[in-house]
């Protein structure tokens, strides 16, 4: 039941801010905290003095560094919700906060429903009695709204697609279940290879939906686009040109931009967060070195990389490597084309035939419109959102799809390992239950109904 899970959410409003707050509430709050927080030294945290602000590092459950934060714990009965509550103050910016949140979710928290913290505060007697009716109304209104949204989606494409998936899964599961409960009736044996093929096809469909979900998330929560390149190639100027105003200090001294500068722009309806990185070069300066380290991290997480080159200088080996080794294919941006050039678009295209090369001048604004168009296309393709809306835009749906996919992958593995039918059924059911969270279908009742409508059973 929902009221008993440990929940987590970003508590500060969306948008840019110096800091942002994640709250984790419920009986496992500290336990989850212990999984994702470390001392600045990297040691595990074992003591949780109440209401004392501590400095710590947030890590992903896999042990990857995410952010340096302040955190403090309220014991049960002494927090806003009345439950054990862990508050983490991270660096602002939605992407960063979401990573912290995701890591809490991976460590066992559940994404809170709208109004759920308030609801809990009431349930635990932390709110005044007079507020009771208001809270009930609020919750009702929210679930009704959710219900409306669900209804809208029911009529829509997403539901059709998911229901098709569900039906395919029922078609696989029902004969298995029927045979388990009626071993003496005439039910065809499980054809593992054929079922494996169908499962693989369903996995592909789920993966496609999830790929779309990434676009959906971009639409809702901004894409991160990183400007990378050697120091002094004009990344900051380019960022400013894209922003349309001077925000970043530009100097000819290499390494001026020591940390990140990030700004969000509206690119033809798509929120894009532009991140300027510290100049990527070997440096003895410790502060800058840390910056370089983080740059690599940021680059790895980005939706898109722009590798910025100086048209007035030869291509260096480091730059070549950067282009070739970036995970997603970066856009190659030839900057400073207003000045005398030694490096040409043609030369780059010959060298990197599979890459898109654009020439711009941050100073004059030449090529900026084409660059914006290229960024948009690289992020979301040529999809016309009016005509083909993205189906999966909600994080909860995405989570459900991911869970279904993981379960089906387990089925596929089980089929190939000659796993017994009762275990295959467990994973198939789990996949259906995950999808049922989107469509609201009740799995176990439907299995039994389908068993008896499909098979003539019983003596």
């Amino acid at each position, binding site marked *: *039941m929902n009221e008993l899970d440990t929940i987590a959410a970003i508590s500060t409003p969306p948008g840019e801010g110096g800091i942002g707050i994640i709250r984790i509430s419920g009986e496992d709050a500290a336990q989850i905290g212990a999984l994702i927080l470390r001392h600045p030294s990297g040691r595990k945290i074992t003591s949780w003095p109440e209401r004392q602000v501590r400095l710590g590092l947030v890590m992903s459950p896999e042990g990857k560094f995410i952010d340096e934060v302040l955190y403090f714990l309220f014991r049960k009965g002494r927090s806003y919700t009345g439950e054990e509550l862990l508050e983490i103050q991270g660096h602002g910016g939605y992407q960063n906060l979401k990573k912290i949140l995701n890591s809490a979710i991976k460590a066992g928290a559940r994404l809170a429903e709208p109004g759920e913290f308030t609801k809990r505060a009431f349930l635990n007697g932390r709110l005044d009695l007079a507020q009771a009716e208001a809270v009930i109304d609020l919750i009702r209104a929210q679930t009704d709204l959710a219900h409306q949204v669900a209804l809208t989606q029911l009529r829509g494409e997403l539901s059709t697609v998911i229901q098709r998936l569900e039906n395919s899964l029922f078609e696989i599961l029902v004969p298995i279940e029927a045979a388990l409960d009626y071993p*003496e009736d*005439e039910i065809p044996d499980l054809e593992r290879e054929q079922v494996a093929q169908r499962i693989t096809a369903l996995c592909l469909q789920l993966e496609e939906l999830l790929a779309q979900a990434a676009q959906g998330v971009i639409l809702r929560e901004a894409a991160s686009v990183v400007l990378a390149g050697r120091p002094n190639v004009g990344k900051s100027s380019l960022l400013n040109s894209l922003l349309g105003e001077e925000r970043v200090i530009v100097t000819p001294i290499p390494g001026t931009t020591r940390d990140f500068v990030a700004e969000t722009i509206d690119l033809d309806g798509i929120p894009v967060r532009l991140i300027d990185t510290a100049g990527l070069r070997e440096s003895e300066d410790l502060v800058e070195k840390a910056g370089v380290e983080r740059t690599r991290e940021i680059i790895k997480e980005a939706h898109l990389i722009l590798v910025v080159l100086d048209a007035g200088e030869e291509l260096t080996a480091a730059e070549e490597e950067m282009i070739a080794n970036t995970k997603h294919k970066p856009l190659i941006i030839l900057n400073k084309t207003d000045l005398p050039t030694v490096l040409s678009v043609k030369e780059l295209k010959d060298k990197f035939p599979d890459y898109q090369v654009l020439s711009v001048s941050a100073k004059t604004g030449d090529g900026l419109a084409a660059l914006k168009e290229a960024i948009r296309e690289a992020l979301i393709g040529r999809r016309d959102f009016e005509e083909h809306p993205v189906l999966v835009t909600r994080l909860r749906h995405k989570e459900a799809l991911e869970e279904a996919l993981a379960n089906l992958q387990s089925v596929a593995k089980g089929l190939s390992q000659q796993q017994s039918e009762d275990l295959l059924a467990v994973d198939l059911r789990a996949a259906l239950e995950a999808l049922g969270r989107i469509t609201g279908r009740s799995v176990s009742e439907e299995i*039994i109904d389908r068993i008896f409508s499909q098979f003539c059973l019983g003596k």
Partner: protein
Amino acid sequence: MRKYFDVAVIGAGHAGCEAANAVAKMGFKTLLLTLNYNNIAFMPCNPSIGGPGKSHLIREIDALGGIIGRNTDLAHIQMRALNTKKGPAVRALRAQTDKHLYQETMRKYLEKQPLIMMRQGEVTALQRTKDLWRLFLNTGVSYEAAAVIIATGTFLRGKVHIGSLSYTSGPQGQHPSLALAENLEAQGIKFKRFKTGSPARVRKRSIDFSKMIEQPGDRLAHGFSHWLPWQPRAPVSCWLTYTNERTHQIIRDNLHLAPLYSGAITGIGTRYCPSIEGKVADFPQRERHQVFIEPEGLNTDEMYVAGLSTSLPEAIQDEFMRTVPGLENVEIVRPGYAIEYDVVSPEQLLRSLQLRDCPGLFSAGQINGTSGYEEAAAQGLIAGINAGRYLSGEEAFVLGRNEAYIGVMIDDLITKENYEPYRIMTSRAEYRLSLRQENADLRLTDYGYKLKLITEQEYEAFLQKKARIQEKLAFLQENYLTPDSREAQLLQEETGVNLQQKTSLQQVLKMPEIKLPLLWRIFNKEASPGEEDEVVENMIKYQGYLEREEKMAQRLLKTEAKKIPATFDYTAVPNLSAEAREKLSKFRPETLGQAGRISGVSPADLTAILIWMTRNNQP
């Protein structure tokens, strides 16, 4: 003379016998009433006990100290292991029994229980006086009891149909119970009508078995009972044959004569025990249906024709059966029939199987809308236990959905609108991998012992078994296979598994191709008797899945711990949806978890209830 019993059980079928036994074992004086002393533990339908889900129920009843398991073992004439290759969760036993031996064994057992007084007598009325119930028999005799368990099966206002013939009757020509139904109804108990049916019984010597496929039994190492030394019998065969298009044509041509289709039957039939006319009508594409010929016993010529349950006129039954290979010259001993009967509307039941508004009055078995001997027996046991706990003023004994199929069944019964007789199925159990038949004692025998249903001697044996299992688990955890060792080489020879590094036996056992007996052989250890190795192997092999179910169960327990007061007024709760308010007011769930399983109740409704409860508990 005042004739007082602590508990009176009305009906000595599978629920009644189990109930009386439980009550007596708990130390209470018990009256067990049957309409006919010849028909104790009578099987009006299949001579068969067990199958997936049902087998699990029997093992659970047995683990708790019930009697259906041992009685089946003693009366079996064939035993089969089902689903042996489909995974540990669904492995099951099915027994063919000698019906008469089954009854005799049960009667003799109950006759030996000093606290049980078993007699023939028809109860025509129940009356509540102060803290006692008074039972009136049609002969004018009356009894007093502090608690009463109604286990009347299909007898309440039973009505048999064969074609256009219909008459009030219990199953197989027995006396129905009419007055009691009127009396209970007058006291406000609500009934609905259900329907079930049975095929014809035919004479053995009129069957040509050479046209059928023999279904021999299996030689098994154990039966149902955890406690009784297993004594396998020389198995008697069953026989398989099939209907064909000619059979179906005759049935189709005469469908209008079947009471279910002519409108004579108003009761609701079950998908789980379909009649052959139902199968032919609902699955026109099927070219044939299976027919199993099962002996009713060793000392009778009657054979049961499983798969051909029917209420068509006898002449038509005769005609269509003769189209089935082997039945060309069949002689009917008793025709098939359908029976309609009263069942208690489920919303009146508490989890203890007590009727909500009648303190001390319980009901169990088919009267609660189930089908099957095993389902009935399980309810009898629970009603018996809870009648005992009612007498001693203790809280009801309730098994969770995560603990037992018994828990799944009773929870389903009291939270779902039942439209047909209920049958247990493994697909109803969310915790199917944890609820295996081979670990029933590990799940439940502690309860059985605490409830005094398990004897000291049985419990001692159970503890020893548990210790042996622990020992084996520890051995597998603490011992390793190192590459190039003699043991590793043996393993590779036998299975082709080539270990690259030092691996614990537990890890080795998790590999799909490795079975426990092989490891014991490699390590020169003795395999265990009975099911101990199976338990050990399943606990290790399916550890990941079992942990997943355990996690789910923890969530379940939290919601089950939130009790809803019996007097809770749903009409006072704002923001409940109309459907939820109606359903909740009707079913009156005892916990928040139960409320959530009632169809039409949403998470938002649960929140509203929770808030309301919290609010009203605050000072």
